[in-house]
């Protein structure tokens, strides 16, 4: 009897495996590379500010307050999609948002911000993408949640949505903020 049921059990086991695969890929984007930086200090950087190109912003300048480092570019269509969400987050004052203008032309970035609005407290310019490599950036948009102590708390690949803010970003801040 058991012998006869053996193919059936094999079928059930295979179904369970495939189902688990589907569930896993629903929960998170299987193409997104998890950041090896989570829980570690963010890489050091010294990048010019977009609005004041002769001003260099360093990682140490941004310590003391958690912030969302939002990788964006004028050439990135999904950045436009997340732009209202980022704007809303910044306006609500719940989290400081720093822009990371990735591999962009200065004029294009300024025009883009003029057209859609500038939600960023500060914008860093990574024109050649070198600082982006240190952060493990491989596209835009990407967002890093950085704690007041300069540690990377979270990385989100792809457009930030209100769900991402509520479920992934803000809960992490409650731990680090009094």
């Amino acid at each position, binding site marked *: 009897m058991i012998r006869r049921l053996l193919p059936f059990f094999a079928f059930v086991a295979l179904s369970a495996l495939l189902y688990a695969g589907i569930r896993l890929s629903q929960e998170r984007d299987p193409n997104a*590379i998890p*950041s*090896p930086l989570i829980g570690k200090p963010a890489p050091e950087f010294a990048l010019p500010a977009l609005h004041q190109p002769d001003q260099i912003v360093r990682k140490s300048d941004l310590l003391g307050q958690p912030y969302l480092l939002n990788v964006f570019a004028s050439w990135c269509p999904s950045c436009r999609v997340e732009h209202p969400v980022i704007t809303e987050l910044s306006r609500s004052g719940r989290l400081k948002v720093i822009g990371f203008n990735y*591999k962009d032309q200065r004029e294009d970035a300024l025009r883009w911000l003029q057209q859609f609005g500038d939600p960023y407290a500060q914008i860093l310019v990574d024109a050649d*993408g*070198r600082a982006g*490599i240190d952060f493990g950036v491989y*596209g835009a948009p990407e967002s890093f949640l950085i704690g007041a102590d300069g540690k990377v708390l979270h990385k989100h690949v792809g457009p930030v949505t209100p769900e991402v803010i509520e479920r992934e970003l803000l809960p992490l801040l409650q731990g680090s903020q009094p």
Partner: protein
Amino acid sequence: MKRIHWLTALVWLLLVSSKALAIDPLPFKDAAEEDRFRALTSELRCVMCQNQSLADSNAMIAGDLRKEVFALMQAGKTDAEIKDFLTERYTDFVLYDPPLQSKTWLLWFGPVAILLAGVIVVIMIVRRRAAGPDQAPTPSNDEEW
């Protein structure tokens, strides 16, 4: 005869162009360095495009990482150091040859386990057939489908 010449020329052209296609020109100092670069970047996986190596990909980040690999080579880093540089930033995802770790056991030994299971099933079937002298039921017409 002439046709064969044409064919060889064509094949040769294809081979050469596929090598030359490897995108942005970098100032290699000799062929050995270029070969090393080719070998290394074809072992690294493009972070953007999944099923292409760093050597093959046209993605923007792949071009940047190729430049970075080249710069690290110029700085005298070994292949292992360059791979460490990339895994520190992009995890083991970038390696086509993932290291043996507890979470990659299934990846490394899964195929062997499946092969073994297949061998065991085949042995069982062969044994059973050898033991019972032709126990197979005579197929009736209904079972044809």
